């Protein structure tokens, strides 16, 4: 599903070259639940951006579903994000002036799905995260946990192969965090590939496999039963 080979990423920051990733090799099989763990500044966010096709590596190769994506154009990458990847961010990243339903519909708009069909799929996704009764609420009328569940609904509405979750519980209380985690586990149980990025070992333990990243390199990998 995901195969990274010798991925490096260097930034120019005020004339100084910062190497965020220094040669990452990683393979994630279809249907796996992998946690990428590391302290802040370790390069895990950069890695997530590259896996999520939001960014391209400086060197190295990245295959996604058998397709080499590291050299694709911005438009192609946007298409891949739209079709194959569902994002869940730490800060939810919902559009504040839209209702929950409209937020969930958004990825389907860019896919060109017709209005009726879009609405149906978005309603279904919201039902699935248990927010059928909050469809017409705006983000500021929802609790943090509810907002993140809307974000999960938005991630899964397009039926993507991969769910990328970047610190999904970072801004939530423990109860809401558990709800979101159980949703992610559920998605995994249904056969989706889930990538979880976190600095919290407790959260990471819920994944099948953990990849520890430090200073731009993979330090250790360990298989953990659920």
């Amino acid at each position, binding site marked *: 599903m995901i195969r990274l080979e010798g991925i490096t990423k260097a930034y120019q920051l005020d004339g100084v070259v910062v190497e965020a990733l220094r040669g990452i090799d990683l393979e994630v099989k279809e249907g796996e639940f992998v946690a990428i763990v590391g302290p802040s500044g370790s390069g895990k966010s950069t890695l997530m951006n590259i896996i999520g096709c939001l960014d391209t590596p400086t060197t190295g190769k990245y295959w996604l579903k058998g397709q080499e994506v590291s050299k694709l154009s911005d438009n192609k990458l946007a298409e891949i*994000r*739209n079709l194959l990847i569902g*994002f869940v*961010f730490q800060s939810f*990243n919902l559009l504040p002036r839209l209702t929950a339903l409209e937020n969930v519909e*958004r990825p389907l708009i*860019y896919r060109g799905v017709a209005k009726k069909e879009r609405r149906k799929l978005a309603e279904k996704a919201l039902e699935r995260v248990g927010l059928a009764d909050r469809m017409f609420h705006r983000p500021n009328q929802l609790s943090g946990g509810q907002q993140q569940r809307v974000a999960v609904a938005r991630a899964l509405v397009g039926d993507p192969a991969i769910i990328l979750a970047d610190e999904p519980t970072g801004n939530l209380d423990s109860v809401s965090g558990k709800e979101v985690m159980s949703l992610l586990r559920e998605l995994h149980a249904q056969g989706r590939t889930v990538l979880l990025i976190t600095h919290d070992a407790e959260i990471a333990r819920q994944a099948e496999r953990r990849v520890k990243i430090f200073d731009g390199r993979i330090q250790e990998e360990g298989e953990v039963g659920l």
Partner: protein
Amino acid sequence: MNLLQAVRLAFGAILANKLRSFLTMLGVIIGVFAVVALVSLGQGATSQVTAEIQGMGSNLIVLAIHGRGGMDSLTLSEAESLAKRPGVGAVAPVVDGYATVKFATESSYTNLVGTTPAYAVVRNHFADRGRFLADVDVQNRLPVAVLGADVAERLFGDMDPVGQEIRINGAAFTVIGVLEPKGFSLGGSSDDFVIIPASTAERLLRRQGIRTVYLQAETAAAIDMVVNSLESLLQLYFRDENAYNVFTQAEILDILSEVTGILTLMLGGIAGISLLVGGIGIMNIMLVSVTERTREIGINKALGAKKRDILLQFLVESIVISGVGGFIGMILGYGAVKLFSGLFGFTITYSPQVVFVAFTFSVFVGIFFGLYPANKAAKLNPIDALRSE
């Protein structure tokens, strides 16, 4: 993403910031309003001038004598004899000046026109009440007067002036008729004068000689021929081409149309500038909007929006603002034109082309000034955009 969807998103974004959108729109509204109203006004002036010149009489030729040395005018009979020339239909010599006209306690200082019965036909200005001059009035230097509608109104009010006695520069005159009203024109009222027989006027004004002659060509085709023959005759008579001028109605029309055309263009240009300023307002607010919505753009890009989608979204937003503004401005302009022409009795031409051009121009303003901000939004890097607060 198709266009319809882009329009829906644009309306959503515009309605999310109602006051700001309205204020931005106001620039375009005022611009289009000004273009429509001012150009209509200018075109109205043009058509009014045209109508006026045409109302002066058909196939009109005006002969103005400036004279040379002692020969500063034609005699009445010389002027009358011009009627015998080929192609000339009628001739109305004019002796003009100013006079004080009195009736009872009312008095009015006004234009005095001494002429012949042909004047009514040549200038297309007939008596409404009573009668116009007759040949017998001119032959016998009778003290009779035909009043312009304004003069009649000023001196007599609602009373019928026909048959009343008035005094012109102290001499007694009998009112035989009142002219039909012609209305207000660019040169002032066309109804503010008194007509008396030319022979009487020469004596009253103590001035011999005709300096203005109105001629009517028999047909439009004969005008050029008449002008040429008049010019060669006058050249022979005065031996100086600066001693006289021959205008045709068409020449007067050309000159005035040119003037009003320039006026219209100037008004349109000034209004166009305000539309341009409105466009800059759109660009300004779109740039602010792109900055404010950087995060939103980042989210949309993460969700799979392509450059083209973001570009379209912002561009359509600016076009919707300018287009809706243009539409409102168009309607307001139309309303103002209607109101203005109703209130002041001006002829204001409302031409669909101007409205169409103003509206189209406003949409182009939206595209032109929206392109840069939209492109700026589309080029944003999704990671940087997501990171922005």
